[in-house]
């Protein structure tokens, strides 16, 4: 009996509760058999499901519950239509079910996604399921912003059958012979994926009995990419090309991109491919706090209606910080909401949620503070006392992180504060010009949240800072700080420790030197061109050295004397490569304004991944450079003593 219940427990939905149940049942296996009923055992861990009906532990009851899993959506819908969820209609698997699933959206209105986005996706699906010609759509966005939910809701509403690809966990049963394994199993993932795509659009579903209103409309959904594609995106591209040529039903990819992610989206679907195959791409934004609040509140209301016993309802401030802490991830917000609402039988004093802590200081000090102070206070709270539960690392999009440093937001000293400042020991007269009002941001935190190395961040700052300065004096100081920052991180052996200081010097230096904080309005930000320039410089130097090796010159005289003058001579050169190199590098167009470098504008969407790659590359190169420069330094050291 125990064994069966154990086995069934693991087949229950993967809620944390299931794990606890399992441990408990194995624990109770150790004592004598007569300690069978869990209620009688002295538990180390207080079972959170002790309030469940006893029969749910017995095999038949469980089985019934798991059987009902299959038809749950229908039940749900009925419940929905019946307006109120009857509190008496308590299902045995009630507590086990994560709220994320229980309250997953069923209608468009319930989706925590912007109307326009839903409409966009809906239009696409409509357009592509009506015609037999298929297409490809990619949904991107941070995790938990409702991509999959949107697809599911829309597919049920539009009556489209979704066929989803899931990675096969074990490609072949172990019983198969070695030969089989080699022939079938080995190429499996890729082959299977290809076959899946082929079959999915070729064959219709079997019409099953009771499968009322089964439609011919179909949609292939891929959320789970075979691992092979991450290593060799080319194979995916080949399959997609083939698919586009022969497809008859739309294909939908759901890719979540995270700022700290590995940039899989860009490698899987490079821009060229998107253009080539006419792939549509809709990117979702993180869920807005207000929307999230609405969702959480409605869940709470429903939950309160369902079960009135033993639910601790978090107060509004807790909800607010939950919303802000989850950084637009509905899934994690709901999960942590469920956790918060757990009935706490004995843990009353050490609540996982800093309820009492969060509220009072604000209330107590509020009257004494100006409005802005309070805001800052709140901000500080958000930043430092990240909730113990459900707090995700808040990340800043690079665009906004740069903006925070470059726009240099400071407090406007109001009357009360000015008086306060005057009473405090101020700067001596000769340093008064260095006085600044308090910053509204913490530069180190901004850098940290930009998911980027300090070095890279400095490069971005460098690329963009000039637009935000108006005074030459300020520019001098800013550029000096940037130069300092570079100097700090120059030594590769200490770079890991000095990197933070470098970025700190750069950001704070920029902030401080921007003394005339004029509001400049919107300025486009650009990606740093230095990476490209230094790469070209190095490549060109290497090319020069290898192409003109037979002139037996040192690199310096080769680059500054021979190549530029070769451009002016009609000396027949030996190879095409040399000619084109000279035309490219030896000549400089004097008339044309320097426009070779196209500035790549940084958009709101652009986050770490791509730059991350560049960064790594640059890191290695920079190390080489540093090593080269290192030698100069060492020799200088020597001659100086």
């Amino acid at each position, binding site marked *: 009996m125990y064994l069966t219940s154990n086995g069934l427990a693991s087949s229950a939905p993967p809620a944390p509760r299931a794990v606890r149940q399992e441990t408990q049942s194995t624990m109770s296996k150790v004592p004598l058999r007569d300690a069978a009923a869990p209620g009688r055992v002295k538990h180390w861990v207080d079972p959170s499901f002790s309030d469940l009906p006893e029969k749910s532990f017995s095999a038949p009851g469980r089985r019934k519950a798991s059987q009902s899993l299959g038809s749950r959506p229908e039940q749900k819908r009925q419940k929905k239509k019946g307006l109120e969820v009857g509190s008496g209609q308590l299902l045995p698997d009630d507590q086990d079910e994560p709220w994320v699933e229980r309250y997953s959206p069923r209608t468009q209105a319930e989706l925590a996604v912007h109307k326009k986005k839903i409409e966009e996706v809906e239009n696409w699906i409509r357009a592509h399921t009506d015609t037999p010609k298929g297409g490809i759509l990619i949904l991107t966005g941070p995790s938990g912003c409702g991509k999959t939910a949107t697809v599911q809701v829309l597919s049920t509403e539009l009556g489209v059958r979704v066929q989803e690809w899931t990675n096969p966990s074990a490609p072949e049963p172990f019983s198969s012979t070695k030969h089989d394994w080699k022939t079938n199993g080995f190429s499996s993932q890729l082959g299977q994926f290809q076959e899946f795509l082929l079959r999915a659009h070729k064959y219709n579903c079997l019409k099953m009995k009771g499968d009322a209103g089964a439609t011919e409309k179909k949609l292939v959904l891929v959320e789970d990419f075979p691992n092979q594609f991450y290593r060799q995106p080319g194979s995916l591209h080949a399959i997609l090309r083939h698919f586009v040529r022969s497809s008859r039903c739309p294909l939908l990819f759901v890719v979540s991109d995270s700022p700290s992610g590995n940039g899989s989206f860009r490698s899987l679907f490079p821009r060229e491919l998107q253009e080539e195959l006419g792939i549509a791409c809709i990117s979702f934004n993180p869920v807005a706090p207000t929307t999230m609040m609405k969702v959480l509140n409605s869940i709470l209301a429903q939950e309160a209606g369902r079960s009135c016993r033993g639910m601790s309802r978090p107060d509004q401030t807790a909800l607010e910080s939950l919303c802000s802490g989850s950084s637009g991830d509905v899934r994690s917000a709901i999960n942590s909401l469920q956790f918060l609402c757990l009935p706490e039988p004995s843990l009353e004093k050490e609540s996982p949620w800093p309820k009492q802590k969060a509220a009072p200081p604000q209330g107590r000090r509020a009257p004494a503070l100006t409005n802005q102070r309070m805001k800052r206070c709140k901000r500080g709270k958000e930043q430092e006392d990240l909730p113990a539960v459900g707090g995700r690392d808040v990340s800043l999009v690079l665009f906004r992180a740069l903006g925070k440093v470059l726009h240099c937001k400071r407090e406007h000293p109001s009357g009360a504060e000015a008086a306060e400042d005057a009473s405090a020991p101020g700067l001596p007269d000769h340093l008064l010009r260095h006085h600044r009002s308090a910053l509204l941001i913490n530069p180190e935190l901004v850098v940290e949240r930009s998911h980027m190395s300090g070095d890279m961040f400095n490069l971005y700052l460098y690329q963009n800072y000039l637009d935000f300065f108006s005074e030459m004096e300020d520019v001098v100081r800013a*550029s000096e700080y940037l130069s300092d920052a570079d100097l700090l991180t120059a030594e590769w052996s200490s770079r890991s420790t000095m990197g933070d200081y470098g970025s700190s010097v750069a950001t704070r230096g920029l902030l401080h030197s921007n003394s005339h904080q004029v509001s400049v309005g919107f300025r486009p930000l650009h990606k740093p061109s230095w990476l490209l320039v230094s790469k070209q410089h190095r490549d060109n130097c290497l090319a020069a050295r290898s192409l003109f090796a037979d002139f037996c010159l040192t690199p310096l005289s080769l680059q500054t004397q021979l190549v530029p003058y070769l451009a*002016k001579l009609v000396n027949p050169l030996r190879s095409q490569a040399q000619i084109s190199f000279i035309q490219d590098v030896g000549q400089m167009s004097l008339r044309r304004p320097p426009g070779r470098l196209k500035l790549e504008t940084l958009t709101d969407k652009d986050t770490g991944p791509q730059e991350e790659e560049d960064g790594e590359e640059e890191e290695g190169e920079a190390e080489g450079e540093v090593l080269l420069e290192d030698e100069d330094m060492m020799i200088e050291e020597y001659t100086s003593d």
Partner: protein
Amino acid sequence: MSLWVDKYRPTSLGKLDYHKEQAAQLKNLVQCGDFPHLLVYGPSGAGKKTRIMCLLRELYGAGVEKLRIEHQTIVAPSKKKIEINTIASNYHLEVNPSDAGNQDRVVIQELIKTVAQSQQIQSSTQREFKVVLLTEVDRLTKDAQHALRRTMEKYMGTCRLILCSTSTSKVIDPIRSRCLAVRVPLPSPEEVCSVLTSACKKEGLLLPPELAKKISEKSGRNLRKALLMCEACRVQQYPFSVDQEVPEADWEVYLRETANAIVSQQSPQRLLEVRARLYELLTHCIPPDIIMKGLVKELLNNCDGQLKTEVAHMAAHYEHRLQLGSKAIFHLEAFVAKFMAVYKKFMEDGLDAMMF
């Protein structure tokens, strides 16, 4: 058709055009059949390499002119493969160890060892030593220089080193003391003129002395540059005219324009333009320190006397940072910004002084 620089390069010590006394001394040095390690130094375009090749020819005969370029792969103790190009004849080996970056020590040790360990086959008819020619010695790491010093002593029997560098300041003392230092100064303007005229004569051209003088001035007595300029003049216009414009390298003109842009306006917007120009120079293979040097030279032309010291000081400060740091553009721009500010202030003060 090869370049004039290569075509009219003297091939024996006797045919050298200038510093004849030094040539004679070098001749005497090799006459007796042996010579110590040499450290040949002098500015770029003075003829160091030419002199060394003449010396080798004097030593081994025409065989040294049969050069072959070899691509060698050396495995460092850390199992890292280093690829390096060498230029070799049967008697000598030329290598630029600084191509290998910070692994130059391994290159020096391995290459010299392989060369030095093999004895000459016919020692009766030839010298009993080979020559290894190292270029750009001043860019060697300190490690490599110390390795070099051991190697020099160890293989003295079978191998002579000729080191070639632009200055001795970055060569460590122990090496300097183990070598016979030979300084090759730049030719005087007259010598440059005579070389140019004779080259033109061999080419069948008539070079007016005024133009020759102009070229020698423009080239800064760098003979390689002067010959390249002269050839470029020939392409530009023949017969030569006296007031012919001497073509300069594009990057030099570009750099001058950049300096003018800095002087004509001082604002963040202008700095942004200058940055784009600096990027352009860098992509055209101009090393950052050369850019810095050229920029300072051009800027100083526009400066008042009392500003010059300050600008030079600033330039030294940022050039040093340029050498230490990893992102050259930061320091270049910081210098330009600083110059702009200083210059702007100077001009404003000057205006104020004129007003009152």
